[in-house]
């Protein structure tokens, strides 16, 4: 019995962290957010050189053959360093392809993901409650309609999207009849957008047993990674709040010596620490207890989102006025946590899913 990270996993996380500490420092993130393509390329090359995109891809398909927990540890670090990255979308694509792709589809795409030559975008937001009447209909291998809140909508070379029935389709980024639009969000480190389909050629992922099952699996992977991302970002916000409170003086004392500030920090840490174990288990379940992954992902998603909201607000408050400004860039973390909360189903939606999965609804 070992509930914890293996030596390899600690090393993996340390190496990603060590790399991002410099490669994704705040100045770099700012540059990329402002559209500096060369800064983005440098970061991407570094990430590719670590082979991260292939972390969950079986070795047969050129990947590292590791688990979702490993991917989550990577995502935790991406959250920690508010790194602009399409890692999460690619991992969801891997999950979709493995769950429902044909052998040929896997052979075509998985090695490309592993080598970093493609970026997938994911369009499954309609599965957790469509807005604006969005949705896709498939007819004779062609998709028509709109998909909202598609990840990497502006950058992806390929997409996996779900139609109204929940079935997945693979779409090439420059397919005829497909138009893409970026949607600005509060979080400039990630990319979300709209795809409009006018009879666009699509290739169905067909091998799934139950319609929508593969989409649900992708959703679970997305939620687990999102929880990991928020965990990393929130952990960093706590560290920043504590560090700032030990520097900043008011009334001739560092503010970290005031009980009110100490207790705010203690509450953040106490709330966040168990989230780590919850996220670990949810990720572990994907590989070890697949029956449980959807439920555990719903729990991880909703609970970490709630704690993340509390931490984001409280850590900003500990910083006082400077936390409200752009000076320290604290808001990059605040907004990263904010976006995670809203995507792939709100906490209420995820809890409703958890209840449904236990037969309570």
């Amino acid at each position, binding site marked *: 019995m070992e509930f914890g990270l293996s030596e390899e996993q600690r090393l993996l996380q340390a190496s990603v962290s060590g790399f991002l500490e410099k490669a994704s420092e705040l100045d770099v993130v700012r540059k990329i957010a402002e559209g500096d393509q060369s800064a983005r390329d440098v970061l991407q090359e570094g990430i590719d050189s670590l082979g991260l995109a292939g972390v969950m891809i079986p070795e047969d398909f050129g990947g590292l053959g590791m688990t979702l927990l490993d991917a989550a540890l990577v995502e935790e670090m991406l959250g920690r360093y508010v790194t602009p990255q399409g890692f999460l979308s690619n991992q969801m694509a891997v999950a979709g392809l493995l769950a429902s792709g044909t052998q040929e589809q896997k052979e075509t795409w998985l090695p490309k993901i592993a080598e970093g030559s493609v970026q997938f975008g994911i369009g499954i937001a309609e599965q957790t409650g469509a807005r604006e009447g969005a949705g896709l209909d498939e007819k004779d291998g062609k998709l028509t309609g709109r998909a909202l809140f598609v990840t990497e909508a502006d950058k992806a070379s390929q997409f996996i999207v779900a139609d109204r029935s929940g079935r997945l389709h693979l779409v090439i980024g420059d397919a005829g009849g497909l138009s893409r639009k970026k949607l600005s969000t509060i979080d400039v480190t990630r990319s979300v957008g709209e795809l409009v389909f006018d009879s666009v050629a699509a290739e169905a992922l067909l091998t799934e047993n139950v319609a929508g099952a593969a989409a649900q699996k992708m959703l679970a992977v997305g939620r687990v990674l999102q929880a990991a991302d928020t965990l990393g970002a929130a952990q960093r916000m706590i560290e920043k709040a504590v560090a700032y409170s030990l520097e900043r003086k008011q009334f001739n004392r560092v503010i970290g010596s005031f009980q009110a500030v100490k207790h705010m920090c203690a509450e953040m840490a106490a709330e966040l620490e168990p989230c780590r174990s919850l996220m670990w288990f949810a990720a572990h379940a994907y590989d070890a207890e697949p029956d449980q992954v959807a439920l555990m992902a719903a729990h991880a998603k909703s609970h970490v989102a709630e704690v993340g909201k509390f931490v984001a607000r409280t850590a900003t408050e500990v910083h006082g006025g400077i936390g409200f400004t752009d000076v320290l860039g604290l808001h990059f973390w605040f907004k990263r946590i904010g976006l995670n909360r809203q995507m792939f189903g*709100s906490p209420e939606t995820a809890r409703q899913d958890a209840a449904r999965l236990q037969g309570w609804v």
Partner: protein
Amino acid sequence: MDLSLTPEYEAFRQEVVRFIEDYRDQAPRGYPSKAWQKILIEHGYAARTIPRDYGGYGAEPDVLKSRIIAEEFTKAGLPGGLSNQGISMFVPTLLELGSEEQKKQWIEPTLKGDIVWCQGYSEPNSGSDLASLQTKAVVDGDDFVINGQKIWTSTAYEADMMFCLVRTEPDAPKHKGISYLLFSMDTPGIEVRPLKTMTGAASFNEVFFTDVRVPTTQIVGQRGEGWFVANATLKYERGMLGDPNQAGTRLNAIIKMMKEETMGGEKLMDNPLYRDRLVKLQSRVLAMQYHGLRLVTHQIKGEDPGLARLIVKLMGCELNHDLAGFAIDILGELGVLYHGSSYLRDNGMWQHRYMFDLGLIIGGGTAQIQKNIISERGLGMPREPKPATV
């Protein structure tokens, strides 16, 4: 308990309504203007209680009449008078503590909008502990020479003048070494830099002083009395935060949204979880609104509401923040759209307010300072003991 108005006040309301009908065409679209301000002062709808000698309307203070004016202007969608820190904070301070000459010189042009003021209080190292401010002014001939830095100065670019706290008596205890100076923003040695906030907007500035020379006569109160003068001003600021009517407006916007928006084809109002959260928030909004009426009543009667007043900033700001957070939640992915995106709701107001309100929770006395104040002044609990070693 009587929520109706006496005939005198009903008549006053009619008078306001008539004014609005008559002058509606002259009102500016959007922000208040100087011309509009002039009309309002003439009729007593701005600078209402400022003496005529100083360019005001000279009416007796009457909380209820002020409330009626505000209500009718809001209902009609008309802008009120000019509102800036000069009018809301500096003028009342000057009326209370300025010399006759200063009142004559500054109040009228400020009311008219000919002079715009900004406030120079906070410093990077003096946030909650405002009295520890370090910007210093030393006397050189007939001038103070100011060096240092201010922060959170909200209209520094547009302002003509600053009212500013500086340390003039470095050897006095911290509360007794401060003076309250007035000077032009054109004085050489002043540099203004915008301060971008988490909302993306630069709603505040930093102001840097390098050998800024200000005549020693440009002081309100005596040297070393600035803290006392500033507290008169802060009293006026505090009243502006945590307004329960704003919460009511937001709540109504959310109700409307929940009746119109759908998620997965289901109306948001049909989601029992969202509905329950809505009713919870509505209870808090109602409680704060009636609490506001209670405070107005105390004010009318000239009573000190004590604790009841001290909680308004804490509870009001938190409620506004929670309303924005709730709106974001029910909007789902739409709730994180920003800055002119397609599908953006209410022009991004909720996202903006959720962050800006956090700034308000922090600014003007953080939530922690508010709780200190409530426990000490409201409940009679002891102040934080001084540490043995500094």
